[in-house]
């Protein structure tokens, strides 16, 4: 009996031990592959700095591959402890990191988040850039009139932002269908409407307009056709030197009415009343249902190549078109994504060696850094032919092979094989000279897309400089806009669907005013005056 009791107790004690061991093991932080170490791990024993660096990562190609960073680490003895985060959730990770005051030594994050947490969790960079970043200082000087928009409410710079140079958006259409129906020129919105009607009459299965996004985005894309120009936040525009909410203007009514009219005639992919995701939109183009993309990604032209590869004998042909003019002769503009990138490098408050970190980041913006970032090393990854950069044939061959084997896009393959570019979370770098970008034509940017970019470039929206809001202003805007945008989006969708008459427009404007739309304008103008004076 004694033995039996002893045995039971031993068993229970052993079980408790196992549970405790499991619990303790679960509490020990994982250290996979030595990828991350605690923030502020400090200067390495050799004297060279060590930084934790949080970035987004595509699991198919490890972030540590980046050639530029690898070379720079080797040259300076700097050590980076990468803290990779899946690119799909890096924004949330950065937000959480900053809101808990535990920012990495270096990280790449979105500007609105960085500037909102600026004085609380991040280091101001103005003096550091002036003293340790000659290349980036030059870039700031070259674009001095746009720098104010980068600053946080306290007037300091908290990020080192790259610049984007690619023209992304334009008007795409099925040229083969237009040709077959006798439409050779599209100068006005009405010309496009006639084309859509004719195509629908010829084939009832055709949706007509097919965009990534929803009908509200479509209305926004059309606003310039009715006289609302420039680009800031959502519908905010400049009129007579004042920032106004374009969503309250009669021109917005006309834009919404145009979308309502198309939707009513069945000339828009009906799923766009809710939302069409990227892949679903591509599917409607591949299946031939979408024949016009308004302010769509020019890279959508690549669908053409993909389709022809699958159907070699098809007449399928997508082309870009010059944006039309509206009923009153107002030129349609396309979304402008050229300029300062919205993502940039920032330093956490506990960075052990900010001077070295800024010097390290400045290398990205140097001539050598730009070359390494975009095309790698001459003779290893590229050659210069008649002044034009070209990837070596063996590089292209390897990329093709990797794409075929791994089912990945060219930028991912370039990264994986040669550590070029930073394709997953940002293009934060200095724009490459045109001759350098020649290397990408036919690989990432097809000739067709490059031609469309050239055609569309003159029609990009003019950027309206962004005012810098104080923390109180930003809070008030967030509170007001949460209701205003809900009301606007819902009302417009009901109008487009035909559930609400366009005659209710004045009621809508009155309600928006009652909900604080004019206060939003006032906040924008106050902040704009404070940021730019009477410029």
């Amino acid at each position, binding site marked *: 009996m004694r033995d039996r009791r002893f045995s039971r107790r031993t068993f229970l004690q052993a079980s408790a031990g196992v549970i405790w061991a499991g619990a303790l093991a679960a509490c020990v932080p994982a250290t996979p592959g030595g990828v991350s170490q605690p923030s502020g791990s400090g200067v390495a024993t050799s004297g060279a700095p060590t930084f934790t660096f949080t970035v987004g990562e595509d699991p198919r190609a490890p972030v540590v591959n980046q050639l530029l960073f690898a070379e720079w680490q080797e040259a300076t003895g700097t050590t980076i402890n990468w803290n990779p985060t899946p690119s799909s959730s890096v924004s949330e990770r950065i937000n959480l990191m900053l809101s808990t005051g535990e920012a990495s030594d270096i990280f790449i994050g979105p500007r609105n988040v960085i500037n909102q947490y600026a004085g*609380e969790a991040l280091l101001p960079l103005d003096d550091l850039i002036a003293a340790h970043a000659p290349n980036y200082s030059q870039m700031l000087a070259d674009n001095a009139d746009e720098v104010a928009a980068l600053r946080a409410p306290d007037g300091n710079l908290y990020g080192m932002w790259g610049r984007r140079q690619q023209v992304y958006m334009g008007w795409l259409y099925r040229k083969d269908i237009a040709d077959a129906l006798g439409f050779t020129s599209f100068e006005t919105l009405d010309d496009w409407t006639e084309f859509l009607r004719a195509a629908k009459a010829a084939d009832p*299965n055709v949706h007509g307009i097919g965009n990534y996004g929803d009908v509200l985005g479509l209305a926004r894309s059309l606003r310039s056709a009715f006289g609302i120009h420039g680009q800031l936040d959502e519908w905010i525009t400049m009129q007579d030197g004042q920032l106004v909410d374009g969503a309250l203007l009669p021109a917005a009514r006309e834009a919404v009415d145009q979308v309502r009219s198309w939707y009513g005639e069945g000339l828009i992919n009906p*799923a766009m009343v809710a939302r069409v995701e990227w892949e679903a939109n591509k599917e409607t183009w591949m299946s031939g249902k979408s024949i016009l993309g308004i302010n769509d990604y020019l890279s959508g032209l690549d669908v053409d190549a993909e389709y022809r590869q699958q159907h070699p004998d098809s007449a399928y042909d997508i082309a870009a078109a010059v944006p039309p003019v509206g009923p009153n002769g107002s030129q349609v503009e396309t979304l402008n994504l050229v300029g300062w990138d919205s993502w940039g490098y920032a330093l956490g408050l506990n960075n052990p060696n900010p001077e070295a970190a800024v010097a390290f980041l400045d290398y990205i913006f140097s001539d050598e850094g730009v070359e390494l970032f975009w095309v790698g090393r001459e003779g290893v990854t590229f050659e210069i032919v008649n002044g034009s950069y070209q990837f070596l044939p063996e590089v292209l061959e390897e990329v093709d092979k990797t794409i075929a084997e791994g089912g990945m896009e060219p930028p991912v393959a370039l990264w994986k094989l040669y550590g070029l570019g930073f394709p997953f979370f940002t293009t934060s770098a200095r724009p490459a000279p045109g001759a350098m970008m020649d290397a990408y034509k036919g690989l990432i940017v097809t000739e067709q897309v490059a031609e469309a970019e050239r055609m569309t470039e003159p029609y990009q929206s003019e950027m309206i400089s962004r005012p810098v809001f104080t923390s109180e202003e*930003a809070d008030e805007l*967030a509170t007001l806009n949460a209701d205003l945008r*809900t009301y606007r*989006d819902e009302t417009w969708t009901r109008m487009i*669907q035909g559930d609400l008459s366009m005659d209710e427009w004045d009621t809508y404007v009155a309600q928006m005013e009652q909900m604080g739309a004019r206060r939003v304008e006032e906040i924008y103008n106050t902040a704009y005056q404070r940021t730019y004076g009477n410029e």
Partner: protein
Amino acid sequence: MTTLKARSHVGAAPIKNRWGSTLWKRIVAHQALILMFLPGLIFFIVFNYIPMGGIVLAFKKYNVLAGIWGSEWVGFDNFAKFFGSYYANRIIRNAILLNLMTLLFSFPMPILLAILLNEVRYNWFKRTVQTITYFPYFIAAVVMVGIVKMLLSPDISLGIFNRILVDIFRLEPINFLARPEHFRSIYVLMAIWQGTGFGAIIYLATLASVDLEQYEAAIIDGANRLQLIRYVTIPALLPTVIILLILSISGLMRSGLETILLLYSPATYETADVIETFVYRRGIVGEGGGRPDYSFATAVGLFQSVVGLILIVVANQIAKKLSDNSLW
């Protein structure tokens, strides 16, 4: 009487001196069991109770540098922001209606399935149905919504429901996901599809413990199949049903954020916008120019929890009075 309180005393010897040597002896005697229990206790303290201190955030304006405790007190400002919103009434109404509908239509389904499966004589059939019905529970919300979007697509080449409407009933296709009047039905049907099989497991486990002699006695008394269900099966299930119902009622203010977020659009805000989605747009994403407002999100979360607590207490009291079954 099957209250948890009553069960907790089963097998317990009387304690003569609660804080005296008898208790110590009992602790020593059960040291191994207590050791096994401790990690769980510590887990709840660390991850469930200590974080409750963060509730103070609801009454503060959170500042990263100052931290939770050092941030400025703002009283009930965050609650005022929520209730002052133009849409406060609508999102509370939507949350309650959506959850009531889910409770009304989705809650009985696992019970019904469990009763039906209990009547099946062929084990292979029973197991097959069980596997098929609980499989959707393991499908991620994003995949589930993708499937639903495909099925309900207004494009008849993709959406099977609209194909049926057009080809069989000669009707016009309906843009289900863009019509507010259909949103609640779609959400509830998804909840039924996803949760019924998994929910039935707990009821089947309850039925497995029913003494077969009760069925035999009822059969001898002349009970037919339906009477067996009515007088044996359902009474056996009742305590479990009531406990789970009380727990479900406590969640009346909380909706499935992921599913709604993936499924809704401005076209369906009228019925689909609930507390979670509004807070997501306003408090977490920081839509509208501001940064995420964690204090606001915490205030709304606290409001939901307090309402949930009141609901569970009230439901428990009602259950206690009506049926002798309750949580405490």
